[in-house]
């Protein structure tokens, strides 16, 4: 059957291309990723200094420190992700190619989510070492929480990055818009991570994973629908 130009098949074909393009750009400019990882690790050190030498408190809140570090670093990553398109006028080239706005959104959001998962993976060993918080539940569950949590930040983050990309105060506006929106995602990620680190005898992780999944489904659908309007505006 012939492919309809601009149809769902075209969108599905374009998503991996946008994803590969964004990951290629980040690989070519990998010094930025290194700086971002250093920033996340510096935040972890600051948290440990701020709390002091109380080992029990540090251990109890290790999950929160991990996610706060990832969240604060994510604003730098997300703000950068649309700059490639806006500053050089590449967004116009993509629009005229034509690349579907939905493909552009899902490709970029997947690239952002992948980078956030990588950042979480880099930050996790120092969290375990600094805060003496070994993972007591299966590591696979922690990977799942990381993927769902990062996806929950990436979808609205990509939308708001597009919304603020042309504004002079984008570095300030992006976290102001994003942080209140992702409170449920942050709460569920922190709670699930803390349970996996301290042990989950009551089996509560499942409900937090369910909340994360519902949040992701809602925002990946909603932001995909709104992205076209945002970049057109």
């Amino acid at each position, binding site marked *: 059957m012939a492919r309809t130009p601009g149809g769902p098949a075209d969108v599905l074909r374009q998503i991996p291309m946008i994803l590969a393009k964004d990951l290629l750009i980040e690989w*070519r400019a990998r010094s930025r990723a290194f700086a971002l990882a250093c920033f996340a690790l510096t935040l972890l050190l600051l948290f440990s200094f701020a709390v002091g030498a109380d080992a029990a408190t540090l251990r109890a809140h290790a999950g929160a420190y991990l996610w706060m570090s990832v969240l604060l670093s994510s604003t730098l990553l997300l703000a950068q992700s649309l700059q490639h398109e806006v500053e050089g006028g590449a967004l116009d080239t993509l629009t005229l190619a034509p690349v579907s706005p939905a493909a552009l959104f899902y490709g970029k959001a997947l690239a952002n989510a992948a980078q956030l998962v990588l950042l979480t993976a880099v930050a996790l060993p120092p969290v375990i070492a600094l805060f003496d918080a070994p993972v007591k539940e299966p590591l696979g569950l922690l990977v799942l929480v990381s993927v769902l949590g990062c996806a929950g930040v990436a979808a609205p983050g990509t939308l708001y990055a597009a919304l603020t990309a042309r504004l002079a105060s984008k570095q300030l506006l992006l976290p102001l818009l994003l942080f209140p929106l992702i409170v449920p995602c942050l709460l569920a990620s922190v709670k699930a991570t803390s349970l996996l680190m301290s042990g989950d005898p009551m089996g509560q992780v499942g409900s937090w994973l369910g909340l994360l999944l519902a949040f992701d489904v809602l925002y990946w659908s909603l932001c995909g629908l709104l992205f076209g309007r945002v970049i057109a505006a």
Partner: protein
Amino acid sequence: MTADTSEAPVAALPPPAAAVSCVGLARRFGRRWAFSRVDLEVPAGQRLLVMGANGSGKTTLLKVISTLLAPSLGQLRVCGIDPAEDPAAARRRLHLLSHSLGLYEDLSGEDNLRVFGRLLGKDDLDVDPVLRQVGLERRPDPIRAYSAGMRKRLQLAALLVKGPELTLLDEPFAALDPLGCAAVEGLIAALPGAVIVASHQVVRASRLCERAILMDQGAVRWMGPAEQAVEAWRALHGGDDLQGGG
């Protein structure tokens, strides 16, 4: 029984749709009109020069024709397609080479062309002949290290990869030295399909075109053969600010 086809009437093919057709086209930003009441027909394969001083509305007109901006008033058809009804179909047939690079600074020229080719569905694109055609060679460094002339050539390479029916060129000679201008002029002259060149380098750009329009303060003040473009410019603006005589 065999039919005698020699006498059979042959259905006439419809004439090719105009590359651009606009009636009463206008665009405003807030209360300020960037241009208004532009009536224009560019037949397929024709080259049109859009002249005008800075702020005359050339760039906005090209952005509206390219479908990046919606018109505030009027009707527009690109290659026979109404962009309001099917923007993707219109966009597949055109390419805009604008002031901004439109490519990724962190990638090499080769990477940029490959990425662009894949997005156009040309997965097996061989970039070497395209780079040779525009006088560029393979370089592994990112294009942020390229000179203005090399960037312009790379933009033209992306244009060749797409191969549109309608090419829109906004100030293609900007920031180029005389040698760069001559090279880009040669590349533009070889472009297939309809071409609209917006430039205030009247002498150089008029050599590339058959027809010209002169815009001033958002209105079309003159329309005629490109050979008369220089006189039309002088009549409106005087002769001192003519550029691109090389």
